[in-house]
């Protein structure tokens, strides 16, 4: 049963510390997305990769956030330094930007999320 995995599932840290969240997309998928979910803002797209290249990170605060894909099986989202306002659930999703005939046009598969609390 292929699924997106995320680690850690929960992270509590103090303001100013570095936080790294990891995501393993479904094998064979060529797109990866990072989202942040809060009560106030709902779901926000932070970054979007296709074939490991960043295509859109306009939703990400550039001064403290960074997203990378060191290889096709790993995506990372890093916050340095972290702040209390970064407290949220961070979701990773993957998909296949195939053709309509593939039947999976636009579909994204979500991981379970990382719940981050910055004190």
């Amino acid at each position, binding site marked *: 049963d292929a699924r997106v995995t995320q680690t850690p599932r929960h992270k509590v840290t103090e303001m100013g510390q570095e936080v790294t969240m990891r995501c393993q997309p479904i094998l064979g998928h060529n*797109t990866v*997305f990072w989202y942040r979910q809060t009560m106030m803002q*709902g*779901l926000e*797209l932070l970054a*979007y990769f*296709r074939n490991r290249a960043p*295509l*859109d990170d306009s939703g990400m605060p550039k001064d403290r956030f960074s997203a990378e894909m060191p290889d096709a099986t790993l995506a990372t989202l890093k916050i340095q330094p972290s702040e209390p306002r970064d407290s949220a659930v961070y*979701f990773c*999703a993957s*998909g*296949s*930007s195939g053709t*309509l005939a593939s*039947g*999976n*046009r*636009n*579909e*994204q*598969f*979500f*991981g*379970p*999320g990382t*719940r981050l609390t910055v004190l």
Partner: protein
Amino acid sequence: AQSVTQLDSHVSVSEGTPVLLRCNYSSSYSPSLFWYVQHPNKGLQLLLKYTSAATLVKGINGFEAEFKKSETSFHLTKPSAHMSDAAEYFCVVGRANAGNMLTFGGGTRLMVKP
């Protein structure tokens, strides 16, 4: 540009009664449309999707949605609500010509009373 509007932020039904969650979209192209469900403290799970095949789409857990182009709607329905259906539901449109980027609606929280 594409957008999605979920007309109700909260819906409350009694167990065993029908569920209707409303969604309107705007899109310049023939859209892909999805409904995702998120149970408390869980990730998002795909309920169903429309990708220009049949306009009535059946999903998991007895849910279905009908694509109505003339009304630009994609409402989610279920004949009989179950307590386990209590969750947040997101209507989503796929962005044309943008790989598989998605535009999310604001979400509808479904509450099911015993």
